[in-house]
């Protein structure tokens, strides 16, 4: 009954902070080769799930499996060669340059006796190329705009060369142009063969970019599948308590959520 093509999954996992469980008995499979987006209202447990998948949060019961084996039973360095992570609001030390930050993505591939190599150099150059930050290489990260900075962080995660990449709200705090830019970049990475998992707030962006959606509420998965099956008026209302109509996105033909107007109809003056 297990899905053989899931490189990353939770099995009956209870996840939370301290003694407060956000999710109990959660079983989720991340399908291989898909761009999975986790959606749901605030505090539904979507970021918590991502943290558990990324092993920054250890489940108090149940397991998280990477390639079928408990992720916490594997050496963190070998996991880091399979699974990259871009957390929410990462911090860069003062004065670090773009090239130096991207180079830090090579950490799991280096060792005491295996120092910086020509291969590392080539991978870093390729990662900067893919995210269009090559021209910024010598700039300080703190001088960049929010959108540029996010591309640099994605480049760092790419330099890690992992087939799986997890992104926790990669578009938060970006203006609409940079949100689209980052999502286009994610779609491109997915097209080139990476398995992506992202937490997104914007339902319409999720419907447009994801190939697999996981909708959560109150710590549980309500529905999952391709966006066309998940983004329906019934499910959106069930997950978000939002009455809406769904139309086709005129650009991509993906589902587009139009919230119903809740203003009362104009009342005739007495």
């Amino acid at each position, binding site marked *: 009954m297990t899905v053989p093509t899931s490189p990353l999954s939770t099995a009956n996992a209870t996840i939370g902070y301290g003694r407060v469980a956000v999710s109990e008995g959660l079983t989720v499979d991340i399908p291989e080769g898909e761009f999975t987006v986790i959606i749901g209202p605030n505090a539904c447990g979507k970021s918590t799930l991502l943290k558990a998948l990324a092993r920054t949060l250890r489940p108090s019961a149940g397991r998280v499996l990477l390639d079928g084996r408990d992720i916490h039973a594997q050496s963190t360095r070998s996991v880091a*060669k399979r699974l990259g992570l871009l957390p929410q609001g990462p*911090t860069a030390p003062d*004065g670090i*340059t773009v090239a130096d930050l991207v180079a830090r993505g090579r950490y799991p591939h280096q060792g005491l006796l295996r120092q910086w190599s020509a291969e590392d150099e080539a991978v870093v*150059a390729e990662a900067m190329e893919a995210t269009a930050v090559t021209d910024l290489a010598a700039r300080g990260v703190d001088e960049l705009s929010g959108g540029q900075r996010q591309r640099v962080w994605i480049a760092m995660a790419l330099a890690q060369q992992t087939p799986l990449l997890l992104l926790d709200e990669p578009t938060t705090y970006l203006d609409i142009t940079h949100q689209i830019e980052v999502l286009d970049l994610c779609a491109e990475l997915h097209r080139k063969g990476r398995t992506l998992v992202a937490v997104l707030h914007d339902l319409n962006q999720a419907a447009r970019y994801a190939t697999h959606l996981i909708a959560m509420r109150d710590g549980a998965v309500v529905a999952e599948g391709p966006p066309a099956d998940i983004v329906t008026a019934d499910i959106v209302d069930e997950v978000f308590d939002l009455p809406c109509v769904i139309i086709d996105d005129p650009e991509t033909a993906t589902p587009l959520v139009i919230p119903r107007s809740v203003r009362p109809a104009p009342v005739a003056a007495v």
Partner: protein
Amino acid sequence: MTATATGAPPTSRRVQGLLALAGALAVLAVLSVAVGSRAMNLPEVWSGLTDTASDAYPVVTQMRLPRTALGLTAGAALGLAGALMQAMTRNPLADPGLLGVNTGAAAAVVTAVHFIGLTTFTGTLLVAFAGAAIASVACYLIAGAAGATPARLALAGAAVTAAGYAYVSAVQLLDTATLEQMRFWSVGSLVTAHTVPLPMVIGPVLAAGAAGVLLARPLNALALGDATATGLGVDPRVLRVAGIAAITVLAGTATAACGPIVFVGLVVPHVVRAYTGPDQNWVLPYSMLTGAVFLLAADVLGRVLARPSELQVGIVCAVVGGPFFLYLVSRRKVARL
């Protein structure tokens, strides 16, 4: 090519900086042997080193050389301990002096001297390690453990330091014998260097120093935040335990030998990072050398300023470091590392 690919400043400049520091250290070492209540010129220093019959010989070999060696070792230990602590906590105000580690070691030593009559250096060293470890853990817990912000950590450190310092003073006031024995030591001093078995200082500092420098690469990952570091394959808890162990040995040894010296560990990494940038592969070795330069310079200065008597090195460090600390606190961007 290297310059553009790995960012400024170029490696060659950072190597030159290391060489310049080594040169400064050599000059200061000579000065440290020459300067004192009995000043010597270079020929006198030379005969003091080589001619067993010269009257400079006992002063140089029994007093000035051990003092210089101790200053160098303790300075390197404190500089590296400060750099490790700032990297580990991502807190630019972290310093083993300010976060209670040195005072904790001092309080433990004073307790052992007063209540148990401790006299051996080995005992002092072990007690200092214990005190340093207890104080650093206490500080971390008071500040809120994993939720410790730079400000909370600095406040907790100030509290632990104040309490420890009051305790050290109280014991010394109650017990004049302890006071006499530790009068200079308790403000941070190299005066008693000739009574300290140097191998027992240099050994632990070398071992912990080597271990500390090996942490450079994981600390570079930790600089990107705990979550990113985990993603890159670093376990932040394991790294912090290793770092605290290295800091305890470094700061504990320095304190056992010279008393609690503050501000070296705070000032040195800031000066270093301004030159090297944030790469710990450079920050850590630079901090060792710069710490040695700073402490030797402060000790020589203390001997020059108050001749024929002298100012204790801990006091000179505080006079120089205090204003620098205020400057850091008043800077707007201080919380980002």
